[in-house]
């Protein structure tokens, strides 16, 4: 979604009284390459879950859609799962299964 479209969506959400959370996304490895950026700040509905975020990113970044089935997600540096609700000011990490060593 373009920045203008995004702001319009945010404006509508605010008009309707939908409360938003500001979050920061950090992308690593293949996810960063496909997203074309290291990080992103977003305003998202307060009840957004990890699954909801994956769905949103699949729509906004078609390149990421394929990665969303195996992506690992962290909230504030702890692994998080599909039902988890994303908190205000959350730092969200998104990356493939780790390969250190």
């Amino acid at each position, binding site marked *: 979604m373009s920045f203008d479209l995004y702001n319009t969506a945010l404006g509508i959400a605010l008009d309707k009284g939908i409360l938003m959370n500001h979050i920061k996304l950090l992308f*690593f*490895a293949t996810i960063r390459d496909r997203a074309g950026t290291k990080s992103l700040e977003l305003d998202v509905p307060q009840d957004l879950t990890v699954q909801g975020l994956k769905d949103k990113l699949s729509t906004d970044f078609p390149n990421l859609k394929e990665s969303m089935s195996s992506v690992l997600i*962290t909230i504030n*540096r702890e*692994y998080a799962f599909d039902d988890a609700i994303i908190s205000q000011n959350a730092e969200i990490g998104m990356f*493939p*299964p*780790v390969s*250190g*060593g």
Partner: protein
Amino acid sequence: MMQPSTSNFPTIFSITETELDLNDLLAQVTLTSTGAAAIFAGMVRGVTERGEPHETEYLEYESYVPMAEAKMKQVADEIRGKWSVVEGIAIVQRIGRLYPKTPTVLIICTAAHRDTGVFDAARYGIDRLKEIVPVWKKEVGPGGGEWVEGDYTPKPGE
């Protein structure tokens, strides 16, 4: 009999871009009560025979550093939970562009004696690092570069 208290046991965990210094690290996890150290070192393999044989020019490592260091601390805590005899623990991962034969990771566990489970403790340390510590490597060879992806999905609470 003097027994060092657990709180005095050194625990070192870090992500670094500088050369790994095994002697320095070993000294930091050696106490007067220490008689054995199990050390695992991983390095860049230039020629791979197993699986699909191939050559590697270099590996490019990256990390989600603050989370990686927190997870290394968690791995050290898990080691202490399983092997209370372990004295010092060091878990260090080097990142950046690393060429064949270069050490990339060091795991050291020390104990009073070698028959205390200290080998298993170090083995557990590298196995867990490869499961939950957010570090990735891109393998670059004659045919180009490709991210290596692990196969472990952390479970809730990990």
